[in-house]
């Protein structure tokens, strides 16, 4: 299964506005994407399109997370989501 790691760039971490923007983008991608803190079990991965899951994940700025997806277009979807996580969305 394709996977990517990304470092959270938003100052407020993956909450608030950055979480909303990311959850919306994950929901629009053609494949189901999961998110987990780096080093945690793949079974603990959460639905990346769920803003409530993202908030309970509690990823802060500088934390490393793993995104996973399977199926057609998974690689492209993951690449664009990684870009989003590595952008400081609070600055926009």
């Amino acid at each position, binding site marked *: 299964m394709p996977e990517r790691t990304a470092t959270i760039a938003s100052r*407020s971490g993956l909450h608030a*506005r950055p979480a*909303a923007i990311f*959850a919306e983008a994950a929901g629009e991608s053609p494949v189901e994407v999961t998110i987990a803190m780096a080093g945690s079990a793949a079974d603990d991965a959460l*639905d990346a*399109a*769920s*803003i*409530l*899951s993202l908030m309970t994940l509690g990823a802060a700025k500088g934390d490393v997370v793993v995104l996973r997806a399977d199926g057609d277009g998974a690689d492209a979807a993951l690449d664009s989501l990684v870009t989003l996580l590595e952008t400081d969305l609070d600055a926009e």
Partner: protein
Amino acid sequence: MQNFQGVGVSPGRVIGTIRQMPKPVSEPPSGEQLAASTTAEDAVAGLKAAAQSVHDELKARADKASGDGKAVLEATALMAKDTMLLKSATKLINNNGSSAERAIWEAGASVSEMLHNLGGYMAERATDVLDVRARIVAELRGVPAPGIPASDSPFILVAEDLAPADTATLDPAIVTALVTSGGGPQSHTAIIARSLGLPAVVAARGVDEIPDGAEVFVDGAAGSLSLEPTEEQRAAALAWVENAATLAVFDGNGTTADGHLVPLLANVGGAKDAAAAAALGAQGVGLFRTEFCFLERDTEPTVLEQAAAYRGVFDAFPGKKVVLRTLDAGADKPLPFLTDATEPNPALGVRGYRTDFTTPGVLERQLEAIAIATDESEAEVWVMAPMISTAAEAARFASLCGAAGIKTPGVMVEVPSAALTSASVLRHVGFASLGTNDLTQYAMAADRQLGPLAELNTPWQPAVLRLVQLTVAGSAEEGNGKPVGVCGEAAADPALAVVLVGLGVSTLSMTARSLAAVGTVLKTVTLEQAQELARLALSAPDALDAKAWVRAKLPILEELGL
């Protein structure tokens, strides 16, 4: 023409159509099951459809909003169709045969609790999940969504009462007046209305039966709402629009017609308020509530954090007086690190200055922060303690202020005992400020928030006016001309403001929106006339007569619609 009479709490005359605030969504009964005619599949599909439409409605509102409000609405819209929430509700429907309403209720509760336990920013979002849950249940039941109705066209909001949280979603460009069946003159609705400058009537029994869309006339000074407005009322509403323009500007000079100066000051809660008050012509700050710096915090802010926050207010008034009130926690303003939420009678409990008995140190650190901020600013800073009851408490507060290097310590007079013994209380401090909201509540033994007690709970009560008079007399007896001001909502009522000046009060502090109206009316009377009106009010048998008698002698109020 049907008329509903309540208590006017914020002046203004408007005509408009009403919208009822929907009742809060009730909890679906625990254990509520799917109806026999409904399959689990249908229930899940119905839930998803309801969630989608709640999402779409919130999203549409977010698209029209801007700034922080937009971000919150966008996040809340996403929560409505969140997979974590819907999956857990679906599980309850499929596995337990729960009704869709009960399932989303329970799923929302557990997600909200999870967020709450994470603390900080997440905990603040926990209430958003509960809001979304209530919206989905309302959608499933086919009833209007809770909260202030969304609308593009202006309307008059009718509700049972408003909560502080409703302020955030109340757009004064859309809501043109507030009318509630409950609440009293000191309720949150009244305070919100005055700060937004919206005409408002509270405790108007029966208004919750008026159908949506009915055209009504509201008079916020008279405290009345009329169905089927007359031509005369239409003319009055038009005249108000013109008056409102002149009443929006205060010339920054509080005085009677014969030149007796009564500085008009503002009540503020933070730097933003202070800047707005300065722009509205306030001659200083008569009540700086410092709670804002502490509220929604689990721990005490540091001395430097506090000093920076206080500076924000001081800097809006260089060279002018700023009266700061030390932390007033307890009763309706609980703070986790200071107050005990389990007290059986919080209004009579450890609140205000009294938190220093149970949690010493917090007050001293606050005084230290105030002293630092004062040194760095050009404002003339006075500091007073809330809920002082005895001369000994005043003496101790003055010595704490002295130790911190604060030059002008004072006390709030809001407990009747302090009013009755003001000569001995004032011996220890430099000034007193009457907090008429609490003084009324304690003098009349009537809870400020209760609608049925609205008639008791008005500072027009002759007993309350007598306590004001005694406080001023105590200052004269003390002999050093120590000023006695008023910083309660009473000062914002132009008629009552005249009475207070007649009773010998030296400054009036109010919500900045009321400065112009109070200033305008004060300029039409001499000090002697104000003293005459004060004697008249004191001689009235009850609050209604006191108010009616004084108003009858001040025809300018009727002319201006105040």
